[in-house]
C-alpha cells in the first residue's frame, strides 16, 4: 500500500488551533524525507466549512469526517472514528498535537492501531538508520533520537518547536467529506469551562522575577519579591511547581498552562526549566537564571547563568545593590 502521512487537525468548535499549522509544517518536513503524500484529517459536526478553511490555508488534501453531534473533542469519539478510518489508508505516520486533546487519545489510538507511539516530538531528522524523531527526557536535561520499528507510528508534536505553515500562498487542496454514524460513547462530555477572568500582572511587566521549587519553602518567596522590587515595572511569577505548592498564585504561573510572557528581563530563581515553563518564557529579551544544579535545563535558554543557592545569592545581591545606592 502507498505510504502516507496523516495530520489530525485540532479545533475547538470549528476554530482551528495554531498547533494544527505547526503540524502541517512538520508533515511537510517529514514528506521531504519520506516522499509520501500528506492528508489532513478533521473530525467534527459540522465539518465542511472548517475543512474548506484548512484546505485553503494549507494547500493540502483535507479529509473531513462528519459525525453527527461531535461538536467538541471527546476521547472515545476520536479513538473510534480514527481507529475505523486510518486502517483503510494505513499511514506511515499519524501526526497529532501534543496538547491536552492530543496526548489524551494518541497513546490509546496507537494501541488500537497496533502502531508505535512517540509523544512530545520536537523535530524530525534523517539518519543512516532511517527517519528519526528528537524528544526530551529527564525534564529536558537529555535529548534523544527515537525511531519506530513498525509500519505505522502515532506521533504527538510538542507545540512551539516547528515554525507554523504560513497560510495562503498555495492552491487550496482537494476536500472529501465522509459522513459516518455518531459513535456510541460511555462517557459524557458536559462542557468546556472558560478561565475565570483573573488578570495577571505578568502580561504588563517589563521585568519578571520567577520562583521555582528551588526556593525550598514558602518563607523564601519574600526574597524573590524583594529582588523584583529593585526593578521598575516588575512582577513576581512562578513555575508550575511553585504554584502547585501554593507559594505563588496560580494566575502568576508562567508556562503553557499559565501565562506566556516576553518581558525585557526574566530572572528565573530556582526553576529547573521543564519544557512547559521554557515555552512560556524563552521569548524574553534577556534571561538570568539562578540554580544550584549546573545541569538544570533552564541554563540552556539563559543569557547569564548563576550556579548558586538563591537563598544566599539574592540577599547578597540586594545588599550590593543597596550599597551601590548609598554610595551614589
Amino acid at each position, binding site marked *: 500500500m502507498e505510504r502516507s502521512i496523516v495530520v489530525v487537525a485540532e479545533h475547538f468548535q470549528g476554530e482551528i488551533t495554531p498547533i494544527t499549522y505547526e503540524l502541517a509544517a512538520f508533515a511537510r518536513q517529514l514528506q521531504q524525507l519520506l516522499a509520501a503524500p500528506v492528508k489532513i484529517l478533521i473530525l467534527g459536526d459540522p465539518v465542511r466549512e472548517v475543512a474548506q478553511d484548512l484546505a485553503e490555508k494549507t494547500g493540502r488534501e483535507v479529509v473531513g469526517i462528519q459525525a453527527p453531534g461531535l461538536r467538541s*473533542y*471527546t*476521547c472515545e469519539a476520536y*479513538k473510534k472514528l480514527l481507529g475505523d478510518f486510518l486502517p483503510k489508508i494505513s499511514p506511515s505516520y499519524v501526526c497529532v498535537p501534543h496538547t*491536552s486533546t492530543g496526548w*489524551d487519545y494518541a*497513546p*490509546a489510538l*496507537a*494501541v488500537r492501531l497496533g*502502531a*508505535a*507511539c*512517540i*509523544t*512530545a516530538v520536537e523535530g524530525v531528522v534523517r*539518519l543512516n538508520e532511517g527517519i*528519526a524523531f528528537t524528544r*526530551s*527526557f*529527564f*525534564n529536558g*536535561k*537529555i*535529548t*534523544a*533520537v527515537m*525511531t519506530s*520499528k*513498525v509500519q505505522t507510528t502515532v506521533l504527538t508534536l510538542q507545540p512551539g518547536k516547528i515554525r507554523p505553515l504560513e497560510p495562503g500562498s498555495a492552491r487550496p487542496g482537494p476536500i472529501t467529506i465522509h459522513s459516518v454514524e455518531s459513535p456510541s460513547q*460511555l*462517557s459524557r462530555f*458536559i*462542557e*468546556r*469551562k472558560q478561565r475565570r477572568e483573573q488578570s495577571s500582572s505578568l502580561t504588563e511587566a517589563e*521585568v519578571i522575577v520567577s520562583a521555582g521549587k528551588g526556593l525550598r519553602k514558602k518563607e523564601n518567596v519574600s526574597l524573590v519579591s524583594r529582588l523584583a522590587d529593585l*526593578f521598575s515595572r516588575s512582577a513576581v511569577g512562578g513555575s*508550575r511547581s511553585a*504554584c502547585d505548592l501554593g507559594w505563588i498564585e496560580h494566575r502568576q504561573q508562567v508556562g*503553557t*498552562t499559565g501565562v506566556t510572557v516576553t518581558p*525585557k*528581563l526574566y530572572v528565573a530563581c530556582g526553576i*529547573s526549566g521543564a519544557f512547559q515553563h521554557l515555552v512560556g518564557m524563552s521569548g524574553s529579551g*534577556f*534571561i*538570568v537564571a539562578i540554580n544550584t544544579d549546573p545541569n*538544570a535545563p533552564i541554563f*540552556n*535558554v539563559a*543569557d547569564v*547563568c*548563576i550556579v548558586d543557592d538563591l537563598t*544566599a*545569592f539574592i540577599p547578597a*545581591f540586594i545588599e*550590593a*545593590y543597596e550599597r*551601590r545606592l548609598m554610595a551614589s
Partner: protein
Amino acid sequence: MKILVCVKAVPDPESLITVNDHEKWVNADPSVPLRMNRFDEFALEEALLIKQAFSPTVIDVITVGSAESEPVLVRSMGMGADHGIRIACERNGYMSPSVVAFLIAACTKGKGYDLIFTGIMAEDDLSGQVGPMIAEHLSMPHATSVVLEKTSPEKKSVYVEREMEGGQRDCLELPLPALLTIQSGINRPRYPSLSKMLRAKAQPLELIDAGRLERREPQEEVLRVGYPQKSRSRKVLQGSRQEKVARLLGILVERSFIKRA
C-alpha cells in the same frame, strides 16, 4: 471501591544525569536512590482521599521495574496504600511505555478495579502514554490531565475536570470502571507516616515475574541520546559569591535594567 494506582520509580531529575559511553542511554548518579515520580504522588493522594471518603476502599499500588523500585511501593504504603505489587523486570536503558502498559494491563485484567490512577506523565521519559494505553487494553474510558475528580460510588461514575490550554477546563462524566491520569496541583500529597512506614516495611510485596506474562516487544527505540542545544549565550558567572553578585549587577546596569548611579 477498589483502586489501582500505577507508580514509577525514577532517578531524581535534579541529580546528575549524564549520557553513557555509547550514547545509547544515560547514567544516573548511583549515590542518589530512585524516588517516586512526583506526578504519581498526586495520583496516590487522590486515591487516598477517596479511601477516606468512601469505606471500604482498597488501594493497590503497582510498579514495573527492578528491586530498586521497591522503596517506592513501601513509601506508597507508608502514605496509606494497602498492597504493593511489583512486576519484576530488569531495567537497562529505555523502558517502552507500550510494554509497561501492556504488562500492567495483563496483571490487572479481571481484578475488578473501579478506578485506575496514574500520574499525568513520568519525570524521566515525559511520555504520558502508559495511562491511556492501559485503559485501551482494558477497554475502559479514560481522561488525562485531571485537575478535579468527584467519584460517586452509588452512581458508579466519576465527574472529572481536565486541564486544557489557556486555563480552560473540559468537564465530563465517566462511568466506572475508568482510568484517570492526574495532573499536579490537584491536591497536596501527604508525607508517609512513621507507623505506616514501619508496617509497610514488614509487609510482603506481591511479585509478578514479567517473564511469565505474554511477551511484548517495544515498537519504538532510542537510537542515541545527547545533551540539549543551548539557545543563548549562556554566560556562566565564575568566582566567589561576591564576585558573581558584582558581575550580575554590572551586567544589569550595562543593559539599563538597573539605573546607573
